[in-house]
């Protein structure tokens, strides 16, 4: 009999896209599944939270956590997963860096709740739900800042190959290290000396699908983004949005991006400022929670309380 490993998969606040990517392993699932014993996976198997809570400590070999902590229930689930798992994986950009919804960290929770539940254009008499709901966390933090994790697998979502590689490595007790290369290293498009005099929105002009998108003045963030995805977007003439987060050597994704843009943009400061009306949205699409800016704001609100 094949020796199986006990695995648990949890979804916190997220779109469950990482599960989709896992299922998309498709026929290779036949190789992986017999080696796994699923002990918790609400997306697929009917286990409840109390089943997970009832497991002994460190009884799960591999725990995959997808999504970030927007509610107190997420926070509880994450802590339970840490307690029960030997190897905890921050699975996907939400888990690793806070994800797209961490862009909400630009506002206080009070403002967010009012905007969402009271001031929505389609609502007449709104109210903030307070019964039978777990309550929200003040801000979104990357999961590795809340509990220690053993492995970070970024991506929005990580590709099926990424997940298969990581899972295979974990099943064989081999190390899995993130690559140091960037999307540009994997990108097939033709590059030239960069001198950008004007940035375009994606819908403006016509993109030449054979040449580097950044050279053409489209904000492609491949240069500051970890090369895990196989340059899917630039290969299809779509600028990289940086959803996989930075390579391991980079501390702050957006800081790296503006450092690089400053070196290649041949524009006056005023033009440059006008070119990016929403710099946080452009430079930190999927990892704002892990940025210095968000952490400074967190610290500020903690100190003023």
């Amino acid at each position, binding site marked *: 009999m094949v020796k199986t490993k006990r695995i648990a998969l949890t979804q916190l606040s997220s779109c469950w896209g990482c599960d989709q990517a896992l299922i998309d392993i498709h026929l290779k699932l036949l190789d992986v599944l017999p080696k796994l014993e699923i002990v918790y996976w609400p997306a697929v198997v009917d286990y409840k939270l109390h089943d997970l809570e009832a497991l002994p400590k460190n009884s799960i070999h591999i725990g995959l956590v997808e999504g970030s902590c927007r509610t107190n229930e997420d926070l509880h689930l994450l802590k339970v997963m840490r307690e029960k798992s030997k190897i905890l994986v921050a699975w996907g950009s939400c888990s690793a860096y806070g994800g797209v919804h961490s862009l909400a960290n*630009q506002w206080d929770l009070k403002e967010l709740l009012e905007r969402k539940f009271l001031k929505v254009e389609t609502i007449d008499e709104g109210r903030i739900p307070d019964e039978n709901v777990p309550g929200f966390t003040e801000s979104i933090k990357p999961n590795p800042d809340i509990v220690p994790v053993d492995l970070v697998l970024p991506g929005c979502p990580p590709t099926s190959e990424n997940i298969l590689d990581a899972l295979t490595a974990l099943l064989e007790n081999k190390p899995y290290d993130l690559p140091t290369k960037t999307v540009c290293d994997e990108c097939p498009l033709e590059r030239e000396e960069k001198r950008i005099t004007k940035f375009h929105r994606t819908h403006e002009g016509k993109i030449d699908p054979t040449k580097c998108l950044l050279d053409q003045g489209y904000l492609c963030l491949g240069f500051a983004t970890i090369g895990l995805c196989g340059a899917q977007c630039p290969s299809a003439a779509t600028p990289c949005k940086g959803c996989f987060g930075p390579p391991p050597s980079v*501390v*702050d994704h*957006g*800081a*790296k991006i*503006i*450092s690089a*843009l*400053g*070196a290649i*943009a041949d*524009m006056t*400061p005023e033009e*440059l*400022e006008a070119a*990016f009306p*929403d*710099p*946080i949205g452009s*430079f930190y699409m999927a990892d704002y929670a892990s*940025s*210095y*800016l*968000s*952490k*400074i*704001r967190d*610290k*500020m609100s903690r*100190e*003023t309380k």
Partner: protein
Amino acid sequence: VSNVTPKSTGIPKSKGKSKVKGQFEPRILAFCCNWCSYAGADLAGTSRMQMPPNARIIRVNCTGRIDMSFILDALYQGADGVLISGCHPGDCHYTSGNLKMEARFTLLKSLLKQAGISPERVHLQWASAAEGDVFTEGVTKMVERIKKLGPNPTRKGG
């Protein structure tokens, strides 16, 4: 910044509190480029020009070497202000490092503004090796600006 213990700087522990009570003395981190502003700061010192002692200078070879994460990290660790001082446009020892800094600085300021952090806490100035007075004035004005803003809210105990 905050890792510097009083022991390592040789300053007696009580010094920070011996000042007039309630008086806020900003801690300003200054990045100076080796070829212009650091020499300018040196000149200001040897010419005995008077300026507030609030700036802690870090010498870098060129302002183009300053990664934006250095500045953000300084603010995160509680620096009240970050001053960047480089060569005048056209005078850069490496031809264009200061211009790259200017472009980065522009984007950094819009990021800070959007994130709700006072962009006045960071400042970029040009001061050549002969301009000890410009450097002195830059530091003096920076200290005034930061005093008006108050301490960095991330710092414990204000």
